[in-house]
């Protein structure tokens, strides 16, 4: 790939990531716009879902895109909500796909659905990392966000997870209406005390159609204060790096070596397969050419992706496609056609790699900036103090972290314009 990311492993197999979307949770949070909903847990739904995932993963494995999987991420929703069927889901995936040695296998969880017995069973089938949606260690803030757990239960859950020896990552949120600087400091201290290796810091965004957006619109809740959120992001950067957690991406902090292998893939152009409702996949276009000869790709009975991504236009280097956000549709037809397909040209793929690569502290090499056609845009951004160049790489500055959209937009539009020309 354009940034030199190695998409083929030693054996020549395509090096990929696998994402599983589990659209269930205990209760939808006030800010959440993801495809997920409370499980009424009709008996059997979890098991049914687990089977559907297995069928889809088997399909992809058959097509040879899961022969060198460096990371598996089971997200949602809250995967642990479904309990025991999740264990079988992981088991089935691990058996169907070929995981690279030391592959990262992450399960997303919440404090109130984390239970030591389940954790142990998951670890036994291969899970080696948990990402916990803590959001805050302030119960007031948790209530605003519509979370089901408390600070106390979060501390207990994190303790249980670290005790089991797995890698633990936490998500926390700033810029929440009513959240004070003091509350934020307290949350950051708790994060350091927890001794975890990875933290994601997200400023709250209002997504249309969420409970929170409605409360803000009707005036029931104060609006978001971007200045305050900016201060909190800066504060997090200081406190966490002092505690040994280095910022390696806009929102991601890790102890050296504890960066998320899976997430890095999204920012470095690594191909990925997404399974489940609303999941996105991105695969090299040549795969679809060679796959014409592979029966399963075009078997109308399977309705596999091969004959539903359509004719790949000339000049396409990558295809990205997304399944519909439709859980019952997925359950009926795990290997169903995608809802949306995108064909990326060489220029667009480079522009996208450059845009996403600039999210990382390591930035992008001059060669990628060039192939993305972004040199002019980057020079302009450098004049505005948002990026800087050294050692033949472009990186965002401290101001650039906060105004990332300015950087991403300029770089993407520069590349996209070129792609159209």
């Amino acid at each position, binding site marked *: 790939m354009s940034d030199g990311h190695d998409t083929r492993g030693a054996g020549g197999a395509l090096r990929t990531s696998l994402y599983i979307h589990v659209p269930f949770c205990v209760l939808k949070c006030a800010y959440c716009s993801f495809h997920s909903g409370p499980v009424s847990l009709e008996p059997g739904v979890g098991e049914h879902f687990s089977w559907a995932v297995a069928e889809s993963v088997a399909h992809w494995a058959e097509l040879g895109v899961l022969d060198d999987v460096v990371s598996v991420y089971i997200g949602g929703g809250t995967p642990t909500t479904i309990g025991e069927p999740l264990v079988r889901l992981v088991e089935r995936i691990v058996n169907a796909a070929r995981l690279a040695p030391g592959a990262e296998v992450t399960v997303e969880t919440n404090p109130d659905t984390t239970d030591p017995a389940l954790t142990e069973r998951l670890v036994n089938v291969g899970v080696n990392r948990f990402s916990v949606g803590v959001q805050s260690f302030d119960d007031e803030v948790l209530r605003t966000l519509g979370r089901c757990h408390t600070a106390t239960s979060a501390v207990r859950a994190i303790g249980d997870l670290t005790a089991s020896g797995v890698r633990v990552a936490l998500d926390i949120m700033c810029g929440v209406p009513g959240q004070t600087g003091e509350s934020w400091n307290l949350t950051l201290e708790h994060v350091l005390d927890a001794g975890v290796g990875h933290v994601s810091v997200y*400023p709250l*965004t209002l997504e249309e159609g969420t409970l929170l957006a409605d409360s803000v619109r009707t005036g029931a809740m104060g609006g978001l204060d971007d200045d305050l959120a900016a201060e909190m992001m800066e504060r997090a950067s200081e406190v966490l790096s002092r505690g040994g957690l280095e910022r390696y991406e806009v929102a991601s902090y890790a102890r050296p070596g504890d960066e998320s292998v899976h997430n890095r893939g*999204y920012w470095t152009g690594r191909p*990925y397969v997404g399974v489940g409702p609303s999941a996105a996949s991105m695969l090299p276009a040549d795969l679809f050419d060679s796959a014409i000869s592979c029966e399963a790709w075009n078997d109308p009975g399977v309705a596999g992706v091969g004959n539903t991504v359509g004719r790949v236009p000339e000049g396409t280097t990558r295809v990205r496609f997304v399944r519909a956000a439709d859980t019952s549709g997925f359950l009926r037809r795990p290997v169903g056609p995608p809802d949306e397909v995108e064909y990326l040209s060489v220029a667009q793929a480079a522009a996208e790699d450059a845009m996403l690569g600039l999210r990382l502290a390591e930035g992008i090499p001059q060669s990628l900036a060039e192939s993305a056609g972004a040199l002019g845009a980057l020079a302009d951004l450098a004049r505005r103090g948002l990026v800087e160049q050294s050692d033949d790489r472009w990186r965002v500055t401290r101001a650039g972290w*906060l105004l990332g959209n300015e950087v991403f937009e300029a770089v993407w539009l520069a590349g996209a314009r070129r792609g159209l020309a």
Partner: protein
Amino acid sequence: MQFLSTQLWCPSTQWGADEPAKSSTPLSSAEEGTGDASVSVRADVLIPAHGAPCYTFADMSQASHIRNFSIIAHIDHGKSTLADRVLELTHTVADRDMVEQVLDSMDIERERGITIKAQAVRVLYTAADGETYQLNLIDTPGHVDFTYEVSRSLQACEGVLLVVDAAQGVEAQTVANAMMAMNAGLEIIPLINKIDLPAAEPERVRHEIEEGLAIPADEAVLTSGKTGEGVREALEAVIARIPAPEGDPEAPLKALIFDSYFDTYRGVVALVRIVDGSVSRGMKVRMMATNTVTDVEEVGVRRPANMPVETLSFGEVGYLITGLKDPALVKVGDTVTLAKHGAIEPLPGYREVKPMVFTGLFPIDGDQYPDLRDALDKLQLNDPALIYEPESSHALGFGFRVGFLGLLHMEVVKERLEREFDLDLLATAPSVEYHVYTTAGDEVIVHSPQDMPETGVIERVEEPYLRATVLVPPDYVGAVMELAESRRATFKDMQYLSATTVEMHYDIPLSELIMDFFDQLKSRTRGYASLDYEYIGYRVSKLVKLDILLAGKVVDALSFIVHRDKAYQRGRVLTEKLREIIPRQMFEVPIQAAIGGKVLARETVRAKRKDVLAKCYGGDITRKRKLLEKQKKGKKRMKNVGNVEVPQDAFMAILKVDE
């Protein structure tokens, strides 16, 4: 109903066999290529073997059987619905083609429920006396912006139906339109309309008409446009009370052009009232004011689609097509006469329409400038009141300074340009025509704040004033006075039209009236007040140009002219407003209001500190890109002024400066 009592031979056609074929096929307007009303006309049509059909109205064309009248009213009192009922009662429009507001053919008229363009239609009505009459009805706009349309229509009539809403009673344009009819010496028949409404109070309204307008109302006709009640009585009153037209059939042709429109295929179509003589197809005629000689290609009547006839005789109302394509040669108000041995004296015309309100119209996408020019050219063909000249702005690029009759006219034109010509336009705050006298003794006409001379060379500035008439229930007199005072209006007098209606008169600068005055009046009087105004002339005022600076640079398109005593307050409110409208940018943006170099008010849009999508994983990437592309579109709707991105709303903010 027997439409044709006499059949005229059409010279250009030959009838087949012995009998002309007769049918009552609806004649759709589309066949005529006018496209101005999607209705069919029911008429007995003589279909010749070859050639065009020909229609005659011989009996009813005798002047004694003609009645020409307008329907006039305050806006929303139900004129157009009444006109619909008249068309139904007289079977002018086939039932299946009946839509609401038949005569309002523009989409925008139907959507807003208003009439913009006057419409003439001929109907045939068999009266109680057994005779069939030719009625020429002219539906007129009620909004004050289009008063000139009413005044033109009245020239073609001997009488009017003055429609008054049975619940609303006499309102400002009722008074204004009634005065116009009286001054024109027309017979006025009051109609108390909407009597089906629960809130109808015909007796009170009758009293208001008598007290307020000094029109005897004991014979007012009670009507309901909704149910059709009283419509027949109204037509009987028209026949009994409105005089038949007078004129000299033997004198040379004199026809008054009272309106015109442009037809892509036929050129300019003139609506005419024949005053003396007659006009037929094939005649050579002369437009007296422009001294243009041309052939008459077609004469006809509107039912409401165009229907050709052989001849229009004195007293009749109809249309005339000459094949002239240049609207400037067929002027509304001009007299048509014979090319040879024509009339010596033209009919008295009426004053040219003068635009009162000016605004800059700029294409958001600079490449659309030629499209905007073409669109204005085309609209002007049917709207002589529209004038424009090129204007350029540092902030907005190339556009036009466009003159309008008023704010509604401006809104309607902008909407039509955007809708019918697919343009994205930005309008600057409306202005009026200022007369600036310099110390050097020159007079400078200023339509745009940009053209205002330097303060140092100004001797005095004059601005247009209006006499405003406000009708309001007594409880709201205080509210009106308060508003008027805040708008530099001078109180003239007030009188009780009735126990429930007070008529107040003010002299007010037009520039104040166009600043949200009507909305304010309505909201402060809970919608009860009605407003009318007329131009009374120019008066000296202490006016200054207030500049708005963004990031230290004057934005020409945001400058405006204001009374010196109000400059500080307007400047302060406007800078506050702009602070809310202008989004945070990458850098701090100071907003200043200044006269000359003197800063009166200052606000700051703080620099944007955070704008980042923190979560960006698999599926988010597509979403993120879509967002970027959407933002780009949103930014296209912004104007880059220097390096500040300014949303369109900013340029209209001055209009909404509440006090």
